[in-house]
């Protein structure tokens, strides 16, 4: 028998990582400060969670300069989309 709990992705257990994936799954290229405002978290906290998502290959990073200020934006990868989609389906099937 398939156990849906096993399909829950440990990478998305934290509230912040779940939030980042939610925002990126419906928006293209979101910058750091917008994410910070949407999720209401501190710089350091967000940065460390983003790094772990990036290491897992769930999101891609773009660094650019806008008005001489560095701006870092994030986009979800195919792998991230798939992983997050599976996590969502697992959550839903657990609640049925």
């Amino acid at each position, binding site marked *: 028998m398939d156990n849906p709990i096993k399909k829950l992705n440990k990478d998305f257990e934290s509230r912040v990582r779940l939030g980042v994936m939610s*925002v990126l799954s419906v928006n293209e290229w979101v910058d750091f400060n917008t994410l910070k*405002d949407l999720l209401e978290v501190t710089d350091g906290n967000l940065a460390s969670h983003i790094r772990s998502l990036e290491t897992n290959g769930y999101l891609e990073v773009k660094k650019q300069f806008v008005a001489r200020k560095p701006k870092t934006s994030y986009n979800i990868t195919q792998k991230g989309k798939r992983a997050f989609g599976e996590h969502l389906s697992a959550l839903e099937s657990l609640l049925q």
Partner: protein
Amino acid sequence: MKKTEKHLHDLNEIRQIMERSTKFLSLSGWAGILAGILAILGTAAAFLYLDNRAISYETLLTLPQGDTASAPLSFLIADAMIVLVLALSGAVFFSYRKAKKSGEKIWSPVTKRLLFQLAVPLVTGGILVLILAGQRNVHLVAPFTLVFYGLALVNAGKYTTREIVWLGIAEITTGLAATGWSQHGLWFWGAGFGIYHIIYGITLYHKYDRKTVTHG
């Protein structure tokens, strides 16, 4: 079961974050109600003015452009502009207040997207109407402001609450009817910008504003 609660909480949070990051949710019902009242006052002012000069809107449309027509036309344009500026200021004020209350940021990427989607049809319609007025097609001004305003609202529907799409469709329909019966353009204008906004505002207030008030 505790686990189930956490999963439910997670799903709810995901849904909320998705909505908050793609939609501007700080549009207030009060802005719609205020815009509607202003438009009705503006329409009443237009009728009173024309009445005082003993010309009807219908005859104004057929007057050749010149001294007799230019004063009433200037009055109508100024009247509409004042309504527009006051209604927009009201919308900004009430949105700002609502965003502040709910702790949302008013100037976000979503706001920019929403404004862009509104601006394209509105600016196009505005320029078109000015050209038409200059070419003595005054009868098309009131209907076309309704049509393009409606298009702007439908266009913006993706980035805010869905009710705005229904308001947009109502405005487009009324604008098309007003094009067909352009001699009654002022009445259609008053209905479209006045009455519809009030209905929309009340709907929005009942659905969203009241909830935030009762939850503190």
